[in-house]
């Protein structure tokens, strides 16, 4: 990927290679994460440059606002519109009893669970998740992280400003002011991660070296140095 995209006064620049594994693109709100996700999904065209895919036969994007995915008047119909067996998606989203409900009658968190379950069940080669943890409670965030970590193949790119509950990742990228910067592979990238969560910063300040970016990794690293 090597691209430049402009809209009004905003310009996005980014280059790099997203290999197999889980990538976290972090950065503050409005830094260009969603725009980059749309560019990588092929839903926006760069002004210059290109996004090249190698060995990617299927791709899916989870949009930031789950209501933007809705194309059917029932929850079961919505799951079916993803080309899935509705019962499977509804069970994963813990919405089995809501099959005939209007998707707009679900809370945003429930709707997020549904769309997240649908994208994960489709299991594409390239999975782009724009703010997958927003609107979710802590328990569901942890469950979502677990499901992401279970994906054993393909490229997963998580675009998020989340700083409390995060999945185990293989690489960290940062967006700031429309510029994408590669921080590198984890754990080497952690010390240079500017938007690292407070628990990771604390662990680093204490001299610990977490092996990944989760709270449990920071805790384990602290335990190791404290005996």
């Amino acid at each position: 990927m090597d691209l430049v995209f402009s809209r009004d006064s905003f310009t996005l620049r980014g280059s790099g290679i997203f290999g197999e594994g889980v990538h976290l693109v972090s950065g503050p709100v409005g830094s260009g994460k969603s725009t980059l996700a749309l560019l990588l999904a092929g839903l926006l065209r760069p002004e210059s440059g290109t996004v090249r895919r190698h060995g990617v036969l299927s791709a899916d994007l989870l949009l930031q606002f789950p209501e933007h995915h809705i194309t059917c008047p029932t929850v079961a119909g919505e799951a079916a519109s993803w080309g899935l067996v509705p019962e499977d998606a509804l069970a994963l989203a813990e919405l089995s009893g809501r099959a005939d409900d209007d998707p707009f009658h679900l809370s945003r968190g429930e709707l997020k669970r549904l769309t997240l379950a649908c994208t994960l069940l489709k299991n594409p080669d390239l999975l782009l998740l724009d703010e997958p943890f927003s609107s979710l409670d802590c328990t569901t965030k942890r469950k979502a992280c677990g499901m992401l970590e279970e994906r054993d193949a393909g490229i997963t790119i998580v675009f998020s400003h989340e700083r409390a509950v995060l999945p185990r990742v293989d690489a960290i990228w940062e967006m700031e002011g429309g510029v994408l910067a590669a921080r590198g592979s984890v754990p080497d990238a952690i010390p240079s991660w500017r938007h690292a969560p407070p628990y990771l910063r604390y662990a680093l300040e204490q001299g610990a070296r977490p092996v990944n970016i989760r709270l449990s990794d920071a805790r384990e690293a602290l335990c190791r140095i404290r005996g």
Partner: protein
Amino acid sequence: MQDPRLRLLSVALLSLAAFASTAGAAAALVWWLLFTPRMKSLPRPGVLLPLVAMIAATALVSSWGGGAGLSYLFRMTVILLLAAWAYAETEDGEMLAVAVWALGNRVGFEAGLVAEMGISGLSVLRQEIEQVRTAIALKGIRPGVRSVVPLAVTLIVTQIRRADEIARLLVVRGYTIGGRICPRFRADPLDVPAAIMAVIPALLSTLPLRDVFILVG
């Protein structure tokens, strides 16, 4: 045309003229060619062409039934051009200002608020159609007759829900009836001549052409 009062008056007169007769529509088209930025005021082809196609389909059905299909197509297309120009020129708050100027702070404010909400609803609807297009692209759904109905239902439900939310928001903010604004209008030197010229198509559409022109034959 900068003055929204004259623009609204001109659009009303020209639309009535275009609707009433083919001659009125032809005169309104001449007015559109003379006093508007013409093609610059049109929406992108993806929005305009489906609207023209809908008018053409109705005209075709009308022709089939022995009606004046071609005249209908011409008249409605001219109205569409006028509507596109008026929509492109309208700025936020103008409808409220015109309504308050015309009907006062109570009835005018209510009418203007409804008009403003309607116009802003159009741009929201356009965004929602874009979002739905993105969603169906992501899901790999082929656009067709079978997918149109649930999409249309989704869009209508979303619009109704949004209207309900705005109504609740107004209540929460203490809105009951009416309001007070001091409307101010900008004007262009060409506004008045253009508005006066808009009367000609209206007159042409109401007068039988044989009474105005001596027709040979």
